[in-house]
């Protein structure tokens, strides 16, 4: 620590070069912060205490195949099931058929199975009492400036009403506020409407249900309960497939894309470039300071402390740039997410830890060659300029 001012002075000996290098490092870590946040948010999707207690039951045939609503009773009777709710796709679109919005037609108790999603009691009551009522996610409400009390015209891309019209009209009675981003994140972008109203109004649904959600009383029994639920409809023409919410989410993401691979290959390219760049800076820094380093050694600095100082300099360089870059990512992402309506995940503590470890490691790696060169410096040769 006592050499900090010396290291600092060495680092800013050539201001232009250090600042230019810093900007590159900032850019790299800004990118790292954004991508790593995306990766973790996909990793953590569905992983939560509440999510572990929920089972999803859908048709074994495929996710678009529906199930009869008569399964509600037998599933509820399976030992270990605390509560069961059901839902179906509504296929809603706002203003333009291509502007699709996640919208589910749900049973009255659906939202109760998601305690991590907050709805004010009065709004919850209004939802129960309004046949045409809908609950909308907070992000959607913010994006389209919807307020409680507004009429909400939606088109259904799947279900026309009895008169053949694609237009449905709903009343916004409440806003969904998810508290836990891992489990409830999708509720920010979701519209919930009454399954009963939906089923009554379209000739195409005929009492069918897209999937059931059940809450188990003991997490450790989840697998057994899942098997028991599937056993109800085994060998019927509507066989089911029951998974924990976590497994179901992981399966979706896996089908969507190999996010981990994409993110890590981009990061690989970025950090490789970064190492080259800052490595070059450190080489130049040590090369032009040869005589200074020789003086340091002459006045009694040990080889080990010269090595340490050069390494510290390169780690410090990476840390300054990296912390600024990650800081920008942390500050910027919520603003960008709010502005664009994209569900960008914020940079969390885990990303910071990984980032700082990376800064230190890259700093050491790029510092090692110049540091060893400085350590091995022969005083006489260096002072003579040979």
């Amino acid at each position, binding site marked *: 620590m006592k050499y900090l001012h010396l290291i600092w002075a060495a680092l800013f000996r050539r201001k232009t070069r250090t600042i*230019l*290098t810093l*900007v590159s490092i900032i850019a790299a870590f800004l990118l790292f912060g954004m991508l790593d946040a995306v990766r973790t948010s996909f990793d953590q999707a569905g992983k939560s205490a509440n999510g572990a207690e929920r089972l999803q039951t859908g048709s074994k*045939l*495929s996710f678009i195949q529906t199930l009869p609503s008569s399964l509600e009773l037998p599933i509820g009777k399976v030992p270990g099931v605390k509560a069961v709710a059901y839902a179906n796709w509504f296929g809603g679109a706002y203003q333009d*058929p291509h502007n699709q919005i996640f919208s589910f037609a749900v049973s009255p108790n659906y939202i109760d199975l998601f305690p991590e999603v907050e709805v004010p009691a009065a709004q919850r009551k209004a939802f129960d009492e309004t046949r045409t009522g809908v609950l909308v996610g907070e992000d959607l409400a913010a994006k389209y400036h919807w307020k409680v009390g507004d009429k909400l015209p939606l088109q259904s891309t799947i279900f026309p009403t009895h008169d053949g019209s694609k237009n449905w009209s709903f009343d916004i009675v409440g806003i969904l506020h998810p508290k836990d981003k891992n489990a409830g994140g999708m509720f920010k972008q979701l519209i919930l409407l009454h399954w009963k109203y939906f089923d009554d109004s379209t000739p195409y649904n005929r009492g069918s249900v897209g999937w059931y959600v059940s809450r188990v009383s003991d997490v450790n029994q989840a697998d057994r309960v899942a098997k028991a639920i599937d056993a109800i409809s085994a060998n019927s023409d509507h066989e089911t497939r029951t998974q924990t919410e976590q497994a179901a989410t992981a399966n979706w993401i896996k089908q969507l894309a190999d996010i981990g691979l994409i993110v890590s290959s981009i990061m690989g390219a970025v950090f490789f470039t970064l190492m080259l760049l800052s490595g*070059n800076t450190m080489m130049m820094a040590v090369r032009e300071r040869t005589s200074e380093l020789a003086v340091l050694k002459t006045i009694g600095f040990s080889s080990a402390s010269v090595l340490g100082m050069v390494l510290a300099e390169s780690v410090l360089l990476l840390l300054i740039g990296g912390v600024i870059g990650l800081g920008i990512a942390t500050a910027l992402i919520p603003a960008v997410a709010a502005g664009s309506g994209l569900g960008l995940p914020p940079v969390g503590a885990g990303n910071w830890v990984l980032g700082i470890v990376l800064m230190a490691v890259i700093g050491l790696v790029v510092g090692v060659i110049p540091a060893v060169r400085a350590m091995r410096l022969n005083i006489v040769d260096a002072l003579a300029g040979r």
Partner: protein
Amino acid sequence: MNKFGNFMIGLGLVVALVVTLGIWVRLPWPGVLGLAVLFALWMALTRLGRQASSVTAVGVSTLRQRLGSSSVIVIGIAGVVGVLVALLAMGEGYSETLRRTGSTDTAIVMRGASASEVMSVLERDNVVVIPQVAGIARDAQGKPIASPEIVVAANLQLKGGTEDDVGSVQLRGIGDEAWTVRPNVKVVAGRKFKPGMHELMVGQGAQREFAGLEVGRQVKLGNQLWTVVGQFASGDALDSELWADANVVADAYRRGGSRNSVTLKLADPNGFDAFKASLEADPRLKVDVDTTLDYFSKQSEGTSKMIQGIGITVGVIMAIGAIFGALNCMFAAVAARAREIATLRAIGFRGTPVVVAIMLETMLLALIGGLLGGALAWLIFNGYTASTLAAGSVGKLSFEFSVTPALLWSGLKWALAIGFIGGLFPAVRAARLPVTTALREL
């Protein structure tokens, strides 16, 4: 006064830079070629140009002594171009695969307001009426070439996964007309399915993604066993599907006489508008029609825009890093050659040749970097297969990354732009350095 002058020059440079980049982004390749030719003429024919080329030659000849720092520029820019081209190639491959699935002389009819085929339901009476509408091509027997199809999803085990690793695949129930409407679909192994049987044909892409789809194997869709009897190839989105007899699929999925869509061939390749009008005029029908090209292009729009957005964001951030890396190296190079440049100026070389020489040198390195990055992206990613759940379909769509010449070209343009910015400031500094100070340095 001097400080103010420096500031104004810096400001002027930045403004000029922004304008140049704005033009550069929009410049098509003939424009770039024209610029290059003009520039080459200037170098060969004018006095200043000849001076510039000799200074450049000196600079380039010393590149080898600065291998370390020059390679930083090359590799940094190669990284930017490689990642950018790879990401854009992913988006391009995806939308290209969907676009190829459609054509302008075939049309797809769905129930009104359906965002995609899967969401549409056409009742039996509609399915009977639609082929009778005027404007549909007819085959040798005089039957209209219109293929009512059913589209459902099926869960199948993924290749290389456990029994629980299931993915969704799109299953299309078809009749004979489906083959006539899509002449590009070829049977590559086995045979076509027999009507009325639980027999499947699998696309090449589907076979790549899912386990147990080899010809002769049996797979379980839901609680029914199907035999895989053939394999087809189409080179587009259909490659990721399974095909079976429409009536059998309708039975298995309890669809009765309804279908999802009718795909048909237009009698006149330019007759879409007329066909659409006659379809809309029929009071029995409440349907939407699109050419298949429009339909599939629209499906890919959202996803490919998103991939493009990601690609450009990542590219811009990486480019910022590379620009500063290049600036750093070129400032160092200029500093190292300060005396040499000052000597040139002292013996009568003007500022322009010095600026041009340093910029040319940086852009040469950038060009090498761009070529390298593009070549790497092409070698590694061209034809690389990936899959995703496509918008508007219910199955995994497998597609190939497509590194097109247009993408490589835009990668090169990025590289040159980075080189331009990275070289401009050091070049101007070199030219403005007072000769006396520079000569006295060291």
